[in-house]
């Protein structure tokens, strides 16, 4: 080979080598540039992504606050129960493990099957698995003696929400239930991690469903803690990196009174109805009772489907909160309000008398509206009309009223509105208006409709809550802070700032006097209860007709059907002359108001006044 050719070849090779040198150099620079972009420019986001990969935060359930009565006694508390918890990743053969533990702890077939079903998954990711809930003391003792044999299992505390009065407070307290969508999204924990929450309650992540548990859920709930695990790519928990303990929820101080609620329940017995009582000074609700009821302990901690179906299908509707949702015609208990309306509108005064022949004839068409007493009460003024419950007097008064004015006056007492500040699912009930009637029945409002409302019948309906609110305003001479179950901080208790209805003091005194006579005088309609107590009580009873009938004979016929019998109602306050508490009682199909509902009201007042 010629030297020149070699030289050309060599030059050619060198230039090509330099070209490759540059090419390789540029490739290295490109790689370095890309690595720089990843590690330096975008470090923060990749560092976060790496943390999100390995950090697995789970919430730790806090203990809910307790609910206390006005004396500080627990109405709902947290009762510890004990669960047997296993660590599946430490168990090689689950079937063998179950055989070993069965002599120690009773296991049903479903419990075994469920355990084996979930076993593999939990073992794979190093999570705990509950084998048996709610161990008996005997089982705990047996396990503790043999615990050295079971290094892969331990007993842990789980709570249940328990009330010592599960039935009588069921409607007002309400129940909790497990919630699959209870996330505290203000916490930096992704939704999907909540299934792995560390539980404090045997029933899982719970939240208030009804009653105070629902209304004050946030207050009672507390604050979730956090545990941050390190996990590997398969989701297996490796170790705990951080632990922030949960904060227990705040206790809820209510105005409820255990003894008074018990006496309401006892005296109502197995009859259907409702009792509500209010502390006149604060508007605090001391008694909120509805019967029949159900066990909140069962609802909160597990009830069989069968039992639940029975409750739902019960014709007496135990879930129905009669105290807040029952719509009852107020019947004669509305008469004081009609009388006050007449005084305010100057349609009547205290001394003016009318003749009560036992019925009222509507001038327009001669239609007869009957009183409860054949032959009537002869000459009646306002006091006597209230005392003997003269229908004729109030038919006549209502006849002179304009329905719009009357409806507005009712609303001052809270009728047609929600009156309780913090009650769960309160019904506003209903005050009719001419517009409403025309819209719904395509018929104009007749004077006869107003006449019916004068004795609390017809379209007007009210809840026991509204009835007690109304009588409390009467008892407090027109003033009342809004009723509330829980002590409201900053509630203005200055009487003058809470005026609902205005009337001269003289009129108020006379009104109290007349309502005291209903119970305490020889002729009062509710005189039958006057000897049940050692203090004086004012009030007004009522008998709500469910069917409109013209004669007593006709009623005796419908009476055979219990559900068509009249409702018995009383609203009362005492002790007179300086009342402290007011109460309303409705007993469904109880008939005669004073004699049936009256004793219940007296028992509750006695309990509240410690006059047993």
């Amino acid at each position, binding site marked *: 080979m010629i030297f020149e050719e070699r030289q050309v070849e060599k030059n*050619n*090779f060198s230039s090509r080598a330099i070209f490759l040198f540059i090419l390789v150099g540029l490739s290295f620079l490109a790689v370095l540039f890309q690595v720089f972009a990843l590690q330096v420019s975008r470090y923060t986001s*990749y560092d976060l992504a*790496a943390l999100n*990969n390995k950090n697995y935060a789970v919430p730790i359930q806090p203990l809910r606050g307790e609910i206390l009565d006005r004396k500080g006694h627990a109405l709902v508390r947290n009762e510890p129960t004990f669960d047997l918890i296993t660590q599946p990743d430490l168990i090689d053969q689950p079937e063998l493990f179950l055989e070993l533990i069965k002599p120690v702890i009773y296991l049903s077939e479903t419990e075994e099957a469920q355990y084996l079903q979930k076993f593999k998954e939990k073992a794979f990711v190093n999570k705990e698995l509950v084998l048996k809930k709610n161990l008996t003391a005997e089982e705990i003792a047996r396990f503790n003696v043999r615990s050295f044999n079971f290094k892969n299992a331990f007993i842990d505390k789980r709570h249940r929400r328990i009330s010592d009065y599960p039935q009588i407070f069921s409607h007002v307290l309400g129940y909790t239930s497990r919630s699959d969508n209870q996330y505290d999204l203000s916490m930096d924990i992704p939704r999907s991690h909540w299934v792995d929450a560390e539980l404090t309650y045997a029933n899982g992540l719970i939240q208030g469903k009804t009653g105070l548990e629902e209304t004050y859920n946030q207050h009672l709930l507390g604050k979730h803690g956090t545990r941050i695990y390190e996990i590997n790519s398969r989701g297996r928990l490796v170790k705990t990196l951080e632990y922030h303990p949960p904060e227990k929820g705040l206790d809820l101080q209510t105005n409820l009174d255990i003894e008074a609620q018990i006496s309401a329940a006892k005296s109502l017995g197995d009859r259907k109805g409702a009792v509500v009582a209010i502390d006149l000074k604060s508007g605090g609700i001391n008694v909120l009772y509805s019967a029949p009821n159900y066990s909140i302990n069962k609802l909160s901690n597990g009830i069989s489907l069968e039992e639940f179906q029975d409750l739902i299908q019960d014709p007496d509707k135990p879930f129905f909160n009669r105290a807040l949702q029952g719509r009852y015609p107020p019947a004669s208990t509305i008469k004081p309000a009609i009388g006050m309306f007449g005084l305010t509108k100057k349609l009547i005064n205290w001394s003016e008398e009318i003749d009560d022949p036992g019925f009222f004839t509507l001038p327009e068409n001669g239609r007869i509206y009957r009183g409860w007493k054949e032959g009537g009460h002869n000459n009646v003024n306002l006091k006597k009309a209230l005392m003997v419950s003269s229908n004729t007097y109030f038919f006549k008064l209502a006849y002179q009223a304009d329905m719009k004015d009357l409806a507005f006056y009712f609303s001052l007492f809270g009728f047609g509105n929600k009156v309780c500040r913090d009650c769960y699912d309160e019904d506003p009930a209903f005050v009719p208006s001419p517009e409403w009637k025309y819209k719904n029945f395509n018929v104009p409002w007749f004077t006869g409709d107003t006449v019916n409302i004068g004795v609390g019948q017809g379209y007007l309906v009210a809840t026991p809550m509204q009835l007690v609110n109304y009588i409390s305003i009467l008892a407090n001479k027109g003033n009342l802070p809004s009723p509330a179950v829980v002590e409201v901080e900053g509630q203005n208790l200055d009487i003058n700032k809470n005026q609902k209805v205005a009337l001269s003091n003289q009129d108020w005194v006379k009104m109290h006097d007349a309502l005291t006579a209903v119970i305490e005088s020889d002729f009062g309609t509710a005189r039958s209860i006057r000897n049940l107590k050692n203090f004086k009580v004012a009030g007004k009873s009522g008998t709500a007709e469910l069917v409109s009938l013209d004669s007593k004979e006709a009623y005796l016929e419908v009476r055979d059907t219990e559900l068509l019998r009249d409702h018995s109602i009383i609203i009362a306050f005492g002790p007179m002359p300086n009342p402290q508490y007011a109460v309303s009682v409705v007993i469904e199909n109880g008939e005669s108001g004073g004699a049936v509902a009256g004793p219940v009201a007296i028992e509750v007042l006695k309990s509240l006044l410690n006059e047993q």
Partner: protein
Amino acid sequence: MNNRSSKIYFDPYLFFSLFTLSIFGLFFLYSASNADASIVLKQSFYMILGFVIMIAVSQADPDLFRRTSWMFIIFSVLLLGITFLFGPEINGAQRWVRLGPFSFQSSELLKLALPIFLANFLFDKRLPIQSREIIISLAVIFIAFILVARQPDLGTGLIVALSGLFVLFLSGLSWSFIGGAFIALIICSPLIWNVLLQPFQQQRIATLFNPESDPFGAGWNIIQSKIAIGSGGIFGKGFGEGSQTQLNFLPETKTDFIFSVIGEEFGFFGVVILLSIYFFVLMRCL
């Protein structure tokens, strides 16, 4: 040449940089294998074996390679044949051949055999190389490529082809030919994409450019690898402290993704040092 046989031929720069790289490699391997000393021990054995072979081979007269290049390439092709006939199928591909306690990828040998063979073939030809030589060389390269690519192992096949093409390039393949081939490749690329590439290969290329399109499937490896490298920062998380590596978010840490391990635990700093050594080795060889 005679004086060479009397002393050991030895390039201290190259040796030292390769040795440093290998020692680094052992360290990284220890971390990448979740502190598995046995793997590191095995690798150290291979490393020492490799160095012994390297020094031994470097003593030989270059003429020896010229003379034996025929045998070398035939041996490599034979091994590929044995792999095809007897090699175990792993992940749907026959790439490995077992020799006693060792197993290795037979295509690896071809990476060396092909360029040596071509260099020898073109050694005594006139320059610039004639079209006859080009056609023969390209044919040999193509056959080698096909043999490997049908295992199937497209990646190694391309590297084998490239190692041959580099020899052609250095031997003075005309620029116009290179340019023409390049343009032809671009024109044919839709055909290659649609006809020659399998769907899984198409998908692999697609996820390279857009890994977020399938973050838990095909894109997982790329995404996790980027997270590992990116979260290393400037100085890294420290030896054995990389969460992506240690908690197995990163796949194949001991092999394919060892670079991500280095990036995560030693950061940009470590990557620069590593690449510098590599660059030095390459430059030293050129």
